[in-house]
């Protein structure tokens, strides 16, 4: 059973709730190697997304993702705003022609999203950014979709892989974003953007699971 526009909205609401719940944790992570605003930025952005999809009611998954992108771009700011914004924009474009997202469509959306982040931010795996969470998630999602799994399972394995990616950022020395100013001192801390990526994927997966 595929994800409708409504399902995507439900997933975004779950994502927003998770971001709100982990706001202080994300601030704390960013405080350690950044400027203590990532939780606030994401929370502000996803609150705005939720209130927007309430009034705008877009009709396709792609339209929901595109609206999310626009709202994030104009409310989050910082590095994560344009990066997450681009991710959702590219995801929207990647699934533009379908009414329901099946497993492969979800994997494709994730892949396109990650490519958007890389296109804008030019980070590679190991730079200690959200790419370190996205990259394994995309790979896991693709494998699951290739084995015929539906959206819920695809998102579940993606989320799981993303969380492993988050842990892997801990020993790294940052080469992109604000943490890179710390040089060697950035090692020993988890990247906040990677963490928010994994949190969102978990929330999406959980929403898809309870629906199915």
């Amino acid at each position: 059973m595929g994800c409708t526009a409504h399902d995507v909205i439900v997933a975004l609401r779950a994502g927003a709730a998770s971001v709100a719940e982990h706001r202080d944790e994300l601030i704390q992570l960013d405080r350690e190697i950044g400027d203590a605003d990532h939780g606030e930025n994401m929370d502000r952005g996803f609150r705005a997304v939720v209130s927007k999809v309430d009034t705008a009611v877009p009709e396709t998954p792609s339209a929901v993702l595109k609206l999310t992108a626009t709202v994030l771009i104009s409310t989050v700011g910082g590095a994560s705003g344009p990066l997450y914004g681009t991710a959702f924009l590219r995801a929207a474009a990647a699934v533009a022609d379908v009414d329901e997202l099946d497993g492969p469509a979800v994997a494709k959306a994730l892949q396109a999203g990650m490519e958007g982040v890389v296109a804008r931010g030019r980070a590679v795996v190991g730079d200690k950014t959200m790419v370190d969470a996205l990259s394994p998630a995309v790979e896991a999602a693709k494998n699951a979709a290739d084995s015929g799994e539906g959206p819920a399972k695809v998102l579940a394995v993606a989320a799981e892989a993303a969380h492993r990616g988050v842990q892997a950022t801990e020993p790294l020395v940052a080469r992109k974003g604000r943490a890179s100013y710390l040089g060697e001192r950035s090692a020993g801390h988890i990247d906040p953007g990677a963490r928010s990526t994994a949190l969102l994927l978990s929330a999406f997966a959980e929403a898809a699971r309870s629906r199915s």
Partner: protein
Amino acid sequence: MKKIINDPADVVAESLRGMAAAHPELLRVRSDPAVIVRADAPVPGKVAVVSGGGSGHEPLHGGFVGAGMLSAAVPGAVFTSPTPDAVQAAVDETSGGAGVLLVVKNYTGDVLNFETAAELAGIDGVEVRSVIVDDDVAVKDSTHTAGRRGVGGTVLVEKIVGAAAESGADLDRCEELANRVVSQVRSMGMALTAPTVPHAGQPSFDLAADEMEIGIGIHGEPGRARVPLTSAEDIVRRLLDPIVGDLPFASGDDVLLFTNSMGGTPLLELYLAHGIAERLLAERGIRVQRRLVGPYVTSLEMQGMSLTLLKLDDELTELWDAPVHTAALHW
């Protein structure tokens, strides 16, 4: 958290309201998205100079809006770069037909958001160029990293290119001048205490009573190294040596020396440090021809300072001396 605020979520908006009330003759403030605009903008036929970034660095950038400096400033949330729609609104409010120059501090967030705004403005038919300021020698520069941060040098870029635009220089010339300043300016900062971001509610980092952070930025991000607190003499040397060595500045050079308070350091201490910097530069034969001393690029209430050195030539000196009418710089 000890602050004179109401709801942390409203700090920037409420502060802008006060700024608008304080300087009706210099600027106006539009909201949703928030932009601080020069009172007489758009000025027809002149290049508009627009900058912006996270709030919390006041007077940067809003305090530099006015004749002879910025056409508009785009304030983001505290320590968070503004969004593209806000930058685009600033372009719309100030574009006088001769193009717009965006002065962008080199942070991933600022660069990405301003980049997007420039694209959007281009689609609307406004010619927009960007200059990236990256003067902080505390950060190792490399093509594989985010690169150097933009810090104190930003004020000098904004003043000089603002003066050029005011005098009628075209977009090419403004861009060339801005890049020239960027290529000749270097900075480094340090902190004794951490700032507290209103929405975070606690200090951005913890620092023992006998420690200081060297090579700090202006966003409450920790510095390159945490070292024991020493004397003013030692602190100034630690900032000046890497700056002088980087460009490098040499004996016989004419320079502008900018001694900046990060916010919480009193003028009494800042002048003291400035005097040391002047002496150390004189010992090296570097000639300080112009100076700026005060809290101009701050990090909320953070105690600390930065030094910025700009190599001057006749043209840059003349543009620096040109009249300016803003809340923070006025001559």
